[in-house]
């Protein structure tokens, strides 16, 4: 049975052209790019080309790109750098729906004397800019806000946020791990100071990422050692990974327009058909400002892990905001922050597409999903709540 992979916000397949580009750097070109011999120089050149390719995707300058090992490192490095550069300021603003790579750093910083504001979101996962405005003070060192949410695809108004942040003289970091390659970006005209991206979300391998640092932003490195990356990130470069990321960035830029249009069409067809065929379900997230490849649907009265396992039986990979899949017992912090009712919260499934997704694959999901939902609802005591069990419980998640 072939796999239908609709979990691209988790990770993506490495593009064959990326593998091809990387191969020589895993075999014959093994020198250290910092070495003075010609052999090393060839690798340094390859790293430079990759840096240009990544810069082009972000609309940035080559000198503004720092290669990292992953999105988490980018987020951590940006936050620490911003704080170290302004030791007099002790306040951070972020949102309740960030990735743990930002949230958990902020939580730790709270134990170290920083105060953190976690901006709330509404039922569509959208921010209130007035709340942001009111939170900004002269003491705010950093505002760290994601570009697009990994679970719902909701896109935040980054440039509007940036204008407000700049007015108050704070640094602005954006975790764009989910947005890069799905939204056109141009750092030249942007208010963003630092931006994180990750390779494995754009068909490069895992273990490589990049951090954009605007020229002029005072940066204090997270990793200290040699002089690699112009002193901003010590450690011998992961040359094959960097070359792969460069190639992946080039391909993303090449396909951006046509691929996102295609993904949007497929996503909309999937979403609308499921909504039409299956009663009692709804889309989570901002219907207008949303990534073109993501749909997150809450199927009422049933639980996400059970849905995933039945999908898995048909070779379909998706993801859920349910607690049972995550090893934690609390359902997704993102869906909870949106205040979804419990009837939907536990049964939310995310389908995330990529440029390889086909019409036939979407057809298959449309074919099996109604039957899966029906089957689990037949087991559920809440579906036909004749005894009023559901009614006796508080149904809105007021977290």
């Amino acid at each position, binding site marked *: 049975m072939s796999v239908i992979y609709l979990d691209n916000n988790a990770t993506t397949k490495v593009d064959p052209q990326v593998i091809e580009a990387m191969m020589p750097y895993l075999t014959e070109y093994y020198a250290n790019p910092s070495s003075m011999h010609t052999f090393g120089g060839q690798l340094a050149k390859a790293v430079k080309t990759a840096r240009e390719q990544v810069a082009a995707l972000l609309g940035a300058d080559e000198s503004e790109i720092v290669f990292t090992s992953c999105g988490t490192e980018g987020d951590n490095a940006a936050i620490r750098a911003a704080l170290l550069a302004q030791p007099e300021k002790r306040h951070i603003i972020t949102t309740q729906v960030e990735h743990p790579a930002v949230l958990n750093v902020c939580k730790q910083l709270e134990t170290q004397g920083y105060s953190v504001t976690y901006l709330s979101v509404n039922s569509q996962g959208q921010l209130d800019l007035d709340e942001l405005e009111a939170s900004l003070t002269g003491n705010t060192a950093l505002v760290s806000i994601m570009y697009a949410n990994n679970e719902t695809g909701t896109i935040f108004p980054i440039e509007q946020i940036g204008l407000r942040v700049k007015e108050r003289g704070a640094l602005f970091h954006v975790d764009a791990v989910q947005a890069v390659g799905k939204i056109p970006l141009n750092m030249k005209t942007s208010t963003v100071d630092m931006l994180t991206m990750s390779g494995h979300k754009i068909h490069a391998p895992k273990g490589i990422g990049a951090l954009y640092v605007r020229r002029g932003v005072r940066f204090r490195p997270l990793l200290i050692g040699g002089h690699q990356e112009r002193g901003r990130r010590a450690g011998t470069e992961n040359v094959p990974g960097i070359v792969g990321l460069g190639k992946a960035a080039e391909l993303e830029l090449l396909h951006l327009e046509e691929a996102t249009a295609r993904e949007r069409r497929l996503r909309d067809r999937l979403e609308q058909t499921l909504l039409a065929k299956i009663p009692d379900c709804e889309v989570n997230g901002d219907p207008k400002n949303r990534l073109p490849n993501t749909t997150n649907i809450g199927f009422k009265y049933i639980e996400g892990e059970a849905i995933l*396992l039945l999908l898995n039986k048909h070779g379909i990979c998706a993801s859920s905001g349910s607690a*049972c899949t995550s090893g934690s*017992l609390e359902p997704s912090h993102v869906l909870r922050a949106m205040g979804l009712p*419990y009837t939907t919260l*536990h049964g939310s499934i995310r389908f995330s597409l990529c440029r390889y997704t086909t019409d036939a694959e979407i057809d298959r999901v449309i074919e099996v999903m109604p039957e899966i939902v029906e089957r689990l609802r*037949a087991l*559920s005591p*809440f579906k036909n709540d004749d*005894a009023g069990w559901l009614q006796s*419980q508080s149904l809105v998640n007021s977290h």
Partner: protein
Amino acid sequence: MWDYTDKVLELFYDPKNQGVIEATGEPGVKVATGEVGSIACGDALRLHLKVEVATDKILDARFQTFGCTSAIASSSALTEMVKGLTLDEALKVSNKDIANYLGGLPEAKMHCSVMGQEALEAAIYNYRGIPLVAHDDDDEGVLICSCFGITDTKIRRVVKENNLTTAEQVTNYVKAGGGCGSCLTKIDDIIKDVEQEVATVSKNSNNGTKTTEILNSGQIATATRPLTNVQKIALIQKVLDEEVRPVLIADGGDVELYDIEGNTVKVILKGACDSCPSSTATLKIAIESRLRDRISKEIVVEAV
């Protein structure tokens, strides 16, 4: 992806005994239902038992479950396990038995088996007319985990029954500690407490392995471990049914167990007993002394 056994997957993909048992008014048969969990917590189970009144035998069992793979499999397993048992036998089915039937559950999913055991208890107590809130002393106690509404009584019980030694295990079994985590140190304290308690009990007894046992005759074996609430209720019901009620019925009266709070046993006197001016004496002599004799010297009987 969780590592499930083949049995878990089998019962998930092809659940046995799903659905409702409707009361059909068949003579000599009663349907009992037990509900645990909630949609807020992310798992819930409603268990239906069809009981043959004369024999206390479970003729059929069905379930409705909201929850993950292992919740569905645990519920299905439970229904398979209890069919054909008497209610007293069924009360002895533990969450461990459910997990064993499934060939094991991932540690993090053990709470699904606990939910099964609790639904079974709830159904049987409902059947016996003991109000849920009254039998469930889990809800008394001090609230330890506010995220999941779990009290110290419940944590203590599950720690004891499953020999748990870490807070993480407690989270896996009853969810307490799985939310904000602020209750984890309190859970650690409870575990320490239980460990000490168990250590003293086994030190004080010359044979630490002896446990309370209900013998066929209804007599009680020497106990070195205190009765759990479940055991106590079952036992009281048994003594009432077998030793007290026949005497009262012969006199045109009857008694029904209403509630148990600690050592206070509340009963409803019926028939001749209800209007009998000497009912207090009847209580003291016929019921209280019998229960004291059979179960615990501390028991006090009250009519409601």
